[in-house]
C-alpha cells in the first residue's frame, strides 16, 4: 500500500495528475491511498517550487507539470 499525495492548488494539471496516477495504479493493480493537498501552507512545507507535486510515502518525487505514464509506472512498481 503506497501513500500518495498530489500537491497543487486545484488547477487542471493537478487534477489530471491525480487522475493519471489512479488510472495507472488500477492498470498495474497497485493498491494506493491518494490524497490531494490544496492548502498552500501544507504544500510549501514540502519545499517545491512548481506544482503539481507528487509525494510518495513522504518523499517528493516530482514537481512541475503532469508526469508521464512511464514515470508513474516507475514510482508505483
Amino acid at each position, binding site marked *: 500500500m503506497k501513500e500518495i499525495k498530489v500537491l*497543487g*492548488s486545484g*488547477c487542471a*494539471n*493537478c487534477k489530471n495528475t491525480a487522475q493519471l496516477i489512479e488510472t495507472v495504479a488500477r492498470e498495474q493493480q497497485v493498491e494506493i491511498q491518494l490524497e490531494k493537498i490544496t492548502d*498552500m*501552507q501544507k*504544500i*510549501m512545507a514540502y*519545499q*517545491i*517550487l*512548481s*506544482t503539481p507535486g507528487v509525494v510518495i510515502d513522504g518523499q517528493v518525487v516530482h514537481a*512541475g*507539470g503532469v508526469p508521464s505514464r512511464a514515470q508513474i509506472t516507475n514510482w508505483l512498481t
Partner: protein
Amino acid sequence: MTAAVSINQSHAIVFRFPKTALGFGILIWLGLYQTLTPLSEWLVALLPINRASHFGGAVQFFCYETPKVLLLLTGVVFIMGIVNSYFTPERTRALLAGRMNIIANGMAAGLGVVTPFCSCSAIPLFIGFLQAGVPLGVTFSFLIAAPMVNEIALVLLFGLFGWQVAALYLTLGLTLAIVAGWLIGRLHMERYLEDWVRAMQTITVSIETTRVPFIHRLQMGAKAVNDIVGKVWRYVVIGILLGALIHGYVPADLMASFLGEEIWWAVPVAVLIGIPMYTNAAGVIPIVQALLAKGAALGSVLAFMMSVIALSLPEMLILRKVLKPPLIITFIAIVGCGIIAIGYIFNALL
C-alpha cells in the same frame, strides 16, 4: 514492415547523433517555411473560387496564415522547450538569491522569459524565491515577466504583425517587469506579506550543475510541442478564421470609433476591461485579432492583452493568500500604470 523498420532506424539515429538530427530538423523546418506561399497559392488556385472576391481573399488569407503561424509556433515552442531545460525554477532561484540592485531585477525579468512557468505555480514559486533570499522586488520582476513576455505571445505578434511589433512588445514588457519590480523593492513592503509567509524558514540554495544528455533536452522540446501546441492550436485557428472573415467582409474601421488611436481614454478602459478576464496569451489572441482587424489601435489592444495576462482578478485572489491588501493594491497600481504607458507608447510609435 519496411516503414516500421525505417522509423526505428531513424529513431536510433536521432538518439546517437541528437545535435546533427536537430540541425537536419531545422533545415527541414526552413524548407517547409519557404514553401508556404507557393503552396497556399496552389491550394487556393485548385478551389473553384474567384481570388479577387471577398471570399477568395478570406480563403487565401486563411490558407496562408494558419500553416505559417502553426509552423512558427511549433518551431519556437520546440526551441523554447530545449532552452527551458537549461533554466529550471530551482536553478533560476539559485541564480537570483541574495542579489539586490536593479541589475538583479533585469536578470529576474530575463530569466522569467526562459524559465518554464505555469500560473498555478505562482504561489509556490513566490514563496520559494523569498525563502531562498531573493528580494521581494526581484521576485516581482520575475513574476510579472514570466506570464506576460512568453514565447506564444511573441510568436503570434511576429507572425501576424511583423518582427518590429514583437521586438517592441518584448522590450516594453521586460522594461515594465524591471521597473515595477524595482519600485516595489524600493517601497520596502515586506511587512505586507502574510504572517505565515514571513514566518517561513529561510533556506540556502546552491546552483546545481547536473549534466543532462542533449537527447533529453530534445525530448523536453518535443514534450513542450505536444503539451503547448496540442492545446493552443485551436485558439490559433479560431483567431485566424475570425481574422480571415473580418479581412474579407467587415469594414475595417468599425472598431476605430471605440478603440481607435484618436480616442485618448481607449487605453485605460482597455486595461480595466482586461482585469476581470482570465486567460493565457493563446486564449486572448482570437479577441486581439478580431479587435485589430476592425480598426482598433494596436497599443490599446496590446494594453488589453497585457492586462488580461498580468492583472487578472482570479490571479489576484490567489496572490491574496500570501500578500496583504496594501501590497496587492500597490502591485496592481504600478503594473496597471505601466501597461497604460506601454499602450500609449505603441499608439504613438505605430
